[in-house]
């Protein structure tokens, strides 16, 4: 009996009426009090403030070195001997920037490095995507063993192989095949070693990229390819026309990784692979320009400030690229769904 009446009543009252009734019971002040003067709210507030302060603090730790380097690069020699100058230059000048750009052939180095980095990043991204897809979507004999080899290439640092790599490219040969014809091929001081390593997925951190792509493609539903196969599309056409466009966010991330790591790399683009500076690259610009050489009380400091300015010039283009690409970069890796 009782139940029946309540049910009937409830049915009569519309949602809107219920709300009005509910709010009518509490005054505006009361509602404010309930919302903001509770322990839950206080706890959340404290947590939010704590989180914000922490993030600001760590951001400061990250940005501070770059900030000091940039501010330092505008200092004049007088500022260095002035003990009251700490962070902001008193006599700002742009000599460092000017002379490094003019005397160290900055733009030549920039173009060379950009070409090499673009080429490497392009090949590495494409090749690692292809290899990663092979590992993710096909079952063939020896797949696990082969993937173990990928892990091994990731594990053994290239420094360990430095000498062997040098010898390999100094006297380039494939199992004594060229030697039979009396050919002696010297690939040192060329970009060929980098090219060969890139197209075979053996260059710097390529194991990581293969791993990332493998995880990404494992998350792509099989039905997608099956639909394409049923429509009569071949395996390769399916990959290039359906899967590759699908993985553009991931590829952006890997491209950015390999581009920027190649950009600041000092392993493949320095001695012993580039012993002479026939190819002027960005690491080569890190040196004192003649016009900036001077001897005074703070020579050591002055030198490191000039070197820092060189470093800033090297990463400036990278930073600009990162500013534009960072959204895709972070989102790309998030969508990869890397799971064990």
């Amino acid at each position, binding site marked *: 009996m009782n139940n029946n009446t309540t049910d009937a009543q409830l049915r009569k009252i519309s949602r809107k009426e219920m709300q009005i009734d509910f709010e009518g019971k509490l005054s505006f002040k009361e509602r404010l009090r309930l919302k903001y003067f509770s322990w839950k709210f206080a706890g959340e507030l404290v947590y939010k403030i704590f989180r914000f302060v922490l993030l600001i603090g*760590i951001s400061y730790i990250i940005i501070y070195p770059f900030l000091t380097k940039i501010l330092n690069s505008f200092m004049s020699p007088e500022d260095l001997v002035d003990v009251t100058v700490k962070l902001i230059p008193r006599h700002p000048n742009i000599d460092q920037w000017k002379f490094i750009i003019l005397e160290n052939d900055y733009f030549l180095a920039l173009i060379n490095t950009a070409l090499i980095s673009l080429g490497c990043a392009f090949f590495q991204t494409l090749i690692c995507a292809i290899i990663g897809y092979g590992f993710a979507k*096909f079952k063939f004999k020896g797949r696990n063993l082969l993937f173990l080899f990928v892990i091994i290439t990731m594990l053994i640092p290239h*420094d360990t192989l430095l000498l062997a790599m040098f010898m390999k490219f100094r006297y380039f040969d494939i199992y004594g095949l060229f030697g039979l014809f009396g050919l002696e091929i010297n690939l040192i001081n060329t970009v060929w070693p980098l090219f060969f390593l890139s197209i*075979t997925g053996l260059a710097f951190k390529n194991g990581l990229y293969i791993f990332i792509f493998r995880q990404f493609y494992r998350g792509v539903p099989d039905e997608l390819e099956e639909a394409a196969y049923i429509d009569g599309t071949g395996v390769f056409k399916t990959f290039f026309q359906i899967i590759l466009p699908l993985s553009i966010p991931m590829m952006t991330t890997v491209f*950015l990784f390999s581009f920027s790591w190649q950009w*600041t790399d000092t392993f493949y683009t320095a001695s012993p692979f580039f012993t002479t500076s026939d190819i002027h690259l960005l690491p080569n610009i890190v040196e004192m320009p003649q016009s900036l050489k001077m001897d005074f009380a703070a020579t050591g400091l002055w030198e*490191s400030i000039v070197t820092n300015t060189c470093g800033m010039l090297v*990463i400036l283009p990278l930073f600009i690229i990162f500013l534009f690409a960072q959204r895709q970069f972070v989102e790309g890796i998030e969508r990869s769904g890397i799971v064990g």
Partner: protein
Amino acid sequence: MNNTASVKVAKKKKPASLDAKKARAGWFFVLPFVIGFVILYIPMLISSIEFSFSKIHVLGKAGYALEFIGLENYRDALFSDAEFVRTLTESIQQLVLDVPAIVIFSLFMAIVLNQKMLGRAVFRAIFFIPVILATGLIDQIDQGNAAMDYMNSGGIDTGAGGAESEGLINTMDITNLLGNMVIGTELVEYVVGVVNNIFNIVNRSGVQMLIFLSGLQSISPAIYESCKMDGATGWETFWKITFPMISPMILVNTIYTVIDSFTSESNVVMRYINRVYNTGSLRPRELSSAMSWIYFLLVLALIGLVSLLVSAFVFYQRRD
């Protein structure tokens, strides 16, 4: 009888099944790696091992000849070289201290950066700056500057990192703060060490943060929702849901951190080996090969140990 034979013949003539076709296609996809591995990597690997056991005679145009001298290089590296063993032990010690700090820090930061809040995009962009910018060349320049800073403390900061952390946080304060709580001196020392090293740790946890972020994204929001319904607190949700679900990532990240910190150019042992390679007097190249192999084997053992330890706690949602 005859009938079955003809069926067999027919079967043989039938074009390869879809699975076989796909398997063949799989080989085509991984072919670049196979070719590179066979043609470039295996010979390099073998010759690197060979070098570490021999003496190189460069014969000008005709290439080079190897003279097998057994374990001489290894003996020299371990017993004759004054600094190698010390650098090695120090580096391994540092690695053992750094790895938990980096993994815990990056997990914490990934969880914070995964929450919705004001300015999340900006913070994310800032946190990934070190991954992109503070590698290779910049790292090298910083090391030069750090040495310089050490010589003339005070004056202008060159922004080399490490050096400025003393200015950021006063070590004595933390020692006092934690010293009063009864948590053991070792732990206090560890925390102080981590805090002093914070610049380094933040700089090295970029990729790990990304991996954790992607792992966190793959946890279904429905699980969190049902937890909230059942009245679990944030703390409980973390230990009962987030932590087990993210544990495979913890394994991956631990191993990645070990690999990353021992292959990075800023690693002390790597730098020492490079120095030997460039300036050593007696068989510098062969010696540096031997040293890198010793180091590699040690780190491999360490990785094995770590993955055994960590995988005991790893929870897999689905096994396939």
